[in-house]
């Protein structure tokens, strides 16, 4: 390979780099032309060129990882972390700026609840328009009406009202976690690991007593996205059963006694302690879940 005066390298390795650069579109027109001429005149270079093109094509066709809605929402939540923390410090009522980043990202029944409880805020957000054209105020009004009509917690799978939508989201989150590679994002039986993890992710962490002595071992936590905002979820294990405990930060300090929302083969119990609104779900029998709830309530005080 001698006698070229086209400014290209004459050693095979250097020429190889030029072919890669040609395939990658990194050469200007003059250099590209010169390299193409060399390729045309040299079968070995032409074979090299064909190999690189074939390889690039094969690598480019590899399947790419999906960005799940839940993951995207988790990342979007990071964007609001600072404003969140400020709100929290000022008003001791966390997670209230959150809906503004999330409408449309999580389409689901849970969002209606958002619309119902925060009509003035969600109705004026520009991001909501970007993601969809439905009118939040009309939606909010219709939910208000349906919330009045639907008397409290009936069948949570029916999406008939706000509570039900939240419960349905908790239930589907639990089901999904059973199907996922791991039901937890942070695996630890140490609440001093789980709580800071949740705190760093979403700025809230519920009480996380370890009830291993009672037969309910804390195995970790994850972040659920429900009603368009991230909420902490703790995962306990009782024999072969997993219990997901979603703890929604609460404002207003209402307390509520455990309420049975079980359906579709899952046991679900909902209660509030003033700071958090809890949803415990599992495929255990109801009495066992009640036992868990009683022990948790006792330990969390």
């Amino acid at each position: 390979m001698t006698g070229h005066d086209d400014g290209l390298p004459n050693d095979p390795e250097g020429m190889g780099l030029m072919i890669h650069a040609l395939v990658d579109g990194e050469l200007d027109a003059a250099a590209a032309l010169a390299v193409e001429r060399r390729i045309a005149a040299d079968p070995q270079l032409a074979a090299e060129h064909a190999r690189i093109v074939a390889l690039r094509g094969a690598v480019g066709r590899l399947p790419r990882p999906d960005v799940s809605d839940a993951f995207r929402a988790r990342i979007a939540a990071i964007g609001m972390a600072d404003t969140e923390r400020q709100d929290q410090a000022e008003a001791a009522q966390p997670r209230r700026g959150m809906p503004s980043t999330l409408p449309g990202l999580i389409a689901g029944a849970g969002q209606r609840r958002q619309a119902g409880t925060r009509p003035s805020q969600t109705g004026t957000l520009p991001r909501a328009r970007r993601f969809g054209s439905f009118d939040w105020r009309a939606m909010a009004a219709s939910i208000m009406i349906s919330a009045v009509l639907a008397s409290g917690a009936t069948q949570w799978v029916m999406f008939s009202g706000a509570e039900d939508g939240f419960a349905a989201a908790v239930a589907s989150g639990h089901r999904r976690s059973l199907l996922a590679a791991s039901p937890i994002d942070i695996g630890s039986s140490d609440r001093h690991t789980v709580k800071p993890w949740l705190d760093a992710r979403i700025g809230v962490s519920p009480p996380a007593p370890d009830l291993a002595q009672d037969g309910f071992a804390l195995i970790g936590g994850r972040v659920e996205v429900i009603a368009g905002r991230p909420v902490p979820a703790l995962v306990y294990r009782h024999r072969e059963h997993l219990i997901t405990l979603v703890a929604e930060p609460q404002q207003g300090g209402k307390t509520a006694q455990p309420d049975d929302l079980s359906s579709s083969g899952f046991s679900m119990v909902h209660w509030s302690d003033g700071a958090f609104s809890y949803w415990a779900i599992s495929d255990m029998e109801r009495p066992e879940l009640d036992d868990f709830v009683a022990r948790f309530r006792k330990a969390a005080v």
Partner: protein
Amino acid sequence: MSESALAERFNQVVLPHLGDALALARWLTGNATDAEDVVQDACIKAHAGISGYAGGNARAWLLTIVRNTSYTWMARNRPRAMMAVGDLGDLDDMAAAHGTSLRDEDGPETSLIARADTAALEAAISALPQPFRETLVLRDINGLSYREIAATLDVPMGTVMSRLARARNLLASELGRAP
């Protein structure tokens, strides 16, 4: 810049490139679950440093953070999978140990490369030494330019080019070998 402007910028700069971020992290850590953890950590860092983003290619900016986070994460969580990488001399040794033969007479079969199935290709990429793998992924999966890769890896452009060529040669000879 106000909080909300920063949050808006975060949404514009980071969210559109989550797919690329996950793809890079998946190849650097070796699996998709770890990739989500890494990208989440990286996004927290990106959020903290968003005011330092000075325009330019947002994807390259985010991928630089993802790449650095991947290695910190790997060192902490998968110390055994980490291979200390020294200077370019080591790289040449690694390439030799990997059994590359640069430009043998007729080279691997182009048709075999083109027909390579996904599993074989993924295995071959996973087997690449890390400096070659990250260069190849940034170029052929994330689509960064040589200049952006050089900035991301903080190496000269010539190094990017030679690592990329080496990576592709290794892959080609792995895939192009007749079964």
